[in-house]
């Protein structure tokens, strides 16, 4: 009876496991051999060995896209995590803040295409309201997306507001800290900063780690839609990111082998970045000082 029960439970798992196999495991495994071939999506793939991977090292577009992606994530991920933490701290605990919390989440539910179109208009150098606002204060009006120096920071600015998911996770993390801890700390004479440093921060750090890892993955994959719609990777490749280069190489130029090689490098660098974040976070976890 028990065995039969477990077997039928296992049957419920089959669609999920099968879907995962076909949609994730097989594509992951397929990428490696694909990177070692020349393939245009039609005929038969022909073996080229490590030629694509070696070629990437001297491919200026790939190097530019890698540098841009690194710059973009190094800017956006810390900003978004810190902003989400600041907002969660500001809107934590007190009752009657539902409206503010909802407002903070609103940009996150706006579909990527709509969000990109809206920011395309907000950032328009001549007619956009953002420069109108700057002019009101007598500030200089940058060309935003039209200027290679400001295009990437402008995309970061637009992306900064879609931090709802991290905000909610950190809010939940904060509300899980028992109030007693703060009362005890206050009795011991801990000030506002000390309470944050020695109570909140150590207890929220596992959540911060989770949020930072999710943000890293999300910020790379979510760079695609705004970059494609708002700048097309320009001006002068200033906002060309790896996902878009992979997309162009594969689906516009039909160079699947080359694109697979890029995908492979992309995958390895994300794994390294995740390990780096994990190590960094390990330094200020539960064990230290507290």
């Amino acid at each position: 009876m028990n065995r039969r029960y477990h077997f039928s439970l296992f049957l419920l798992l089959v669609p999920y496991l099968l879907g995962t196999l076909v949609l994730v495991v097989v594509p992951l495994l397929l990428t490696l051999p694909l990177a070692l071939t020349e393939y245009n999506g039609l005929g038969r793939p022909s073996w080229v060995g490590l030629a694509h991977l070696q070629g990437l090292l001297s491919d200026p577009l790939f190097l530019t896209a890698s540098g841009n992606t690194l710059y973009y994530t190094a800017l956006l991920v810390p900003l978004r995590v810190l902003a989400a933490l600041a907002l969660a701290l500001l809107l934590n605990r007190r009752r009657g803040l539902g409206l503010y919390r909802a407002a903070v989440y609103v940009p996150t539910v706006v579909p990527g295409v709509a969000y990109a179109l809206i920011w395309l208009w907000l950032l328009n150098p001549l007619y956009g309201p953002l420069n109108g606002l700057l002019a009101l204060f007598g500030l200089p009006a940058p060309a935003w997306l039209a200027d290679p120096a400001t295009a990437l920071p402008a995309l970061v600015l637009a992306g900064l507001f879609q931090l709802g998911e991290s905000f909610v996770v950190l809010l939940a993390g904060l509300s899980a800290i028992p109030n007693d801890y703060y009362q005890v700390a206050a009795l011991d004479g801990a000030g506002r900063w000390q309470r944050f440093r020695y109570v909140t921060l150590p207890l929220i750090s596992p959540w911060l780690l989770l949020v930072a890892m999710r943000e890293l993955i999300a910020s790379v994959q979510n760079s695609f839609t705004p970059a494609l719609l708002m700048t097309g990777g320009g001006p002068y490749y200033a906002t060309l990111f790896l996902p878009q280069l992979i997309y162009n190489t594969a689906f516009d130029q039909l160079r699947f082998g080359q694109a697979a090689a890029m995908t492979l490098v992309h995958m390895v660098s994300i794994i390294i970045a995740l390990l780096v974040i994990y190590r960094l976070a390990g330094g200020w976890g539960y064990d230290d000082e507290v």
Partner: protein
Amino acid sequence: MTMRCDVQATEDTEGTERRLITASSVGAVSSLATSMRRLSYHLVASTIAALFVVPLLWATLASLRMPGLPPPQGLSWLADPLTLGNYRRIFDLLPLGSYLLNSIIVACVSVLLTLIIASWAGFAMARLPGPVRGRLVILAVLLRLVPLPILWLARFILFSRLQINDTLWALIAPAWMGTSPFYVLLFYWAFRRVPGDLFDAARLEGASVLQSWALVAMPMVRPTAASVVVLSFMHYWSDFINPLIYLKSERNYTLAVGLRTLQQLDLTNWPLLMAGAVVMMLPMLLLFLLAQRAFWVAGGVGSRQ
């Protein structure tokens, strides 16, 4: 509604607090300081909250501007003759009805599949013995870390072998794995909170696994199921990359890719573009306002990972 009640309740308690403070020997000075602090807090919080909402409001107002008028210089909130003409115009320019229909078909079919497959997987995980369960949870957590761009290429080749490229099935495909392992984990955690005795009792009564899933388990986790429905609906409605990669013929376009053609048609007609953005965004904003709890449920549970 609940929000308003919350505010009401707080005001009540704050009122009581204030009365208590006033009555106490501390006197009026401290009470004044407290309300000043509270006022400045709300000033800061509402300014920040406005930062998140005002850009969207701006875009909505811009979509009500008459096309053809010279674009406004500087900040202008309301156009003089307000018009809904831009909305009519995008329906003339694009087969928006067909885009909408495709979006709705994809979202509905995918949500239904996601609900069944993710809850089945979550239910089985919650009921299987410890070691198997642990391994499945680790699998799901690792799957959450896979960035989607690294799957595009191989999935495209796979889909063309399966001959589902350029059909709506290519967009629905992720639903076969429950869309996101996160939804499987949401169900898993929800089912773990249900006392196991309930399922054991159902089993002794002779209920099959499928029966105890449908009749015992699912009714117990309604908030989680609602969360998954809302979140996955949003996911499929907003999905831009999959239709961009897998669809070729315009008759299969969903709203997300269809709107891109609007941008390619006429890049400088801002009122028209903003009207397109609003058509895409408004259903999601309404869904968010109506089903806000879904997001907090998912966040609260998601933070346990």
